[in-house]
């Protein structure tokens, strides 16, 4: 099957408490799964297992129907876009250079790369003519995050991993980027796993939401189901954001 599937996946270092414990989940080809939970719950580890930055200690992770152990790691990572928490734009490359990185590694023809860069800049709402040649340190935090997303989408990977992509932004910019993300996702239809500790963000972006706690996936469901859940731990997470989510849906 397309998308990403975790089958009874555990991960941990020998002699230490497990970081992930028996995780099973499925994300379809055009679906967005948002993982929510406090820091240390194991959310980022889930992402790193998808693009084989880590291999599971137990169970298996399947991407595009194939076990990550059977993937060539380089090929796998070029088919999985990754937006990391700290953005990690390369300071010695321009905005265009950053976005064009994977297409260049894949040896796309030059004019095709240029066209793709323009297309992505337009997609993320940055005017290509004025932004393509800028340098990362000339951008605002929000603009950098957008370029990070564009870079991850550049080679049109079927899977996109996003680790707190809007984490370090002010609330207004964050709202705006979340809206744009929904717009983009509607157009590009990727299998997306997005990690956040913000329940409001999870409710706003997820087709489905997974709640993590202490290395376990304790609850999975649609935003509707989660709002109606009577699980005490889920309710506790919801309490903090409920007013926000209500005003959002009103």
């Amino acid at each position, binding site marked *: 099957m397309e998308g990403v599937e975790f089958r009874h996946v555990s991960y941990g270092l020998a002699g230490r408490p497990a970081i992930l414990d028996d995780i099973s989940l499925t994300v379809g080809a055009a679906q967005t799964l948002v993982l929510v939970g406090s820091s240390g719950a194991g959310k980022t580890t889930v992402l790193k297992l998808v*693009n084989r*930055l880590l291999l599971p200690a137990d169970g298996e992770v399947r991407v595009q129907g194939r076990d990550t152990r059977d993937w060539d*790691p*380089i*090929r*796998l*990572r*070029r088919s999985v876009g*990754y937006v*990391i*928490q*700290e*953005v*990690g*734009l*390369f*300071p*010695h*490359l*321009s905005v265009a*250079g950053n976005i064009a*990185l*994977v297409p260049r*590694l894949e040896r796309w023809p030059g004019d095709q790369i240029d066209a793709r860069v323009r297309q992505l800049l337009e997609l993320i709402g940055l005017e290509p003519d004025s932004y393509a040649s800028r*340098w990362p340190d000339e951008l605002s935090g929000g603009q950098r995050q957008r370029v990070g997303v564009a*870079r*991850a989408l550049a080679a049109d990977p079927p899977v996109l991993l996003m680790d707190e992509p809007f984490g370090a932004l002010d609330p207004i910019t964050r709202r705006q980027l979340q809206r744009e993300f929904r717009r983009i996702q509607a157009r590009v239809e990727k299998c997306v796993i997005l990690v956040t500790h913000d329940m409001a963000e999870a409710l706003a972006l997820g087709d489905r939401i997974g709640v993590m706690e202490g290395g376990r996936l304790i609850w999975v469901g649609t935003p509707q189901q989660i709002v109606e859940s009577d699980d005490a731990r889920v309710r506790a997470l919801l309490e903090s954001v409920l007013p926000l989510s209500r005003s959002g849906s009103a």
Partner: protein
Amino acid sequence: MKALVGFWVSHGQELATLVAEHVLLVVISTTAAVAIGVPLAIFATRRPRLAAPLVGVANIVQTIPSLAMFGFLLPIPLIGGVGARAALTVLVLYGLLPIVRSTIVGITSIDESIRLAGVAMGMTPGELLRQIELPLALPSIVAGIRVAAVVAVGSATIAAAIGAGGLGQYIYRGLSMVDSTVILAGAIPAALLALIVDGGLLWLERRLAARRRTGSRRAALAVAASFALAVLAGSAVLALRAPGAIVVGSKNFTEQLILGEIVAQTIERETGLPVERRLNLGGTLICDRALLTGDIDVYVEYTGTALTAIFHQPAAKDPEAVIGTVRDLYADSGRTLLAPLGYDNTFAILVRGADARARGLRTIDDVAKIAPQWRAGFGYEFLERPDGYPGLAKTYGLMFRSPPQVMDLTLSYRALASGQVDLIAGDATAGLIKGLDLVRLEDNRRYFPPYDAVPIARASTLLRYPNVQDALEGLSGRISAGDMQEMNHAADVQHENPADIARRFLDRAR
């Protein structure tokens, strides 16, 4: 200052060659240090446990004084010996530390999120290195190269001691002739070179660190690279003289420089063979090694020195017997003692001319009687040598007013002339004897062993070029002690060029 400019003007061609040699030594050694050091540092960042020991070893290498390093390398084939190759080895070793260290720092200080982004985007380790790590570490690497190159400019001056050429030649020549003009003639361009290298690479480093415009980074790199290439090509053209068929060496004092020129010019005149000069080598041991390994083909040695210092035999008195012994010892190691040049550069016991005339002093016996009222000054070596002061005092029953003063050999001539001491032991052929009106007392009891000046050549060279042997045998007995003293005087007192002095001598003697 005027003298200095005059020197540069009259030695323009030579100065250009020496600068070119110097630049070549620096550029080649620094390039090699980069080629070795950067991969080594990259390897160390991949194996963090190796990084500390690696930097430690490089650190230790850095602390070895360069002269000692040349000494270690003398007997080692391929990378050692005498000449530019050994010099390059030393300069490369010195350059490694700053380059390795700065490369390691440059790579390890890259933000972890940037490396993670690269890996997560599916870069292979090679792509990550070439496209991310090296470009980001470049300013730091260039900073290391700058330090290495400036160190190389300094160390390369010392390389003249083993005949590698470069501006150090003037410094050593000046030191051996006690001529500060010649020292400055080499030291000032060397210092300027260091400043230029430092400034140029600092400019490059700043341009690279300002990573704003990839365009200007590329331009800066291109400017630097083409400049370096142009300098390299120019230097190569200037420094690459026709390879000499015969390499003539000499030790590092005035008389040896003149003798080296006499030998070189004699071979050039008589045989027409191209001759390469490696004059001013840093002492007896280096000349001997160089002759043994074939880095030089011929140089002039003194029989007594060969006997005691090179072959560690007890001193002997009879000149013919000493020549025989030394000839056999050289023959055992594939070297041929040619015909003695005709003078004996022994120690000379010297007094002021005025004293000698007033008191009628002719021999050392004459002075022994009045010695208890006199003060003596000797060089450190003379006080220590088995054929030096202790034996002299015993042979002649010498006793001075106070224990002899230790002083620099070259300065002792002036100390005697100005009356600070009354008797010294100098070189019999020293030019200053005439210049300062000093008188040499006769060694009437024949205490000093003979120090006949004689060219030593590699037997294999003479077999290949028999006419070289004929040419040098032609110098047999041609240089008297008076001739040598006069030539030393011309160099030390009148500051004439050793090559000109040698040319005049050969023209006249023809």
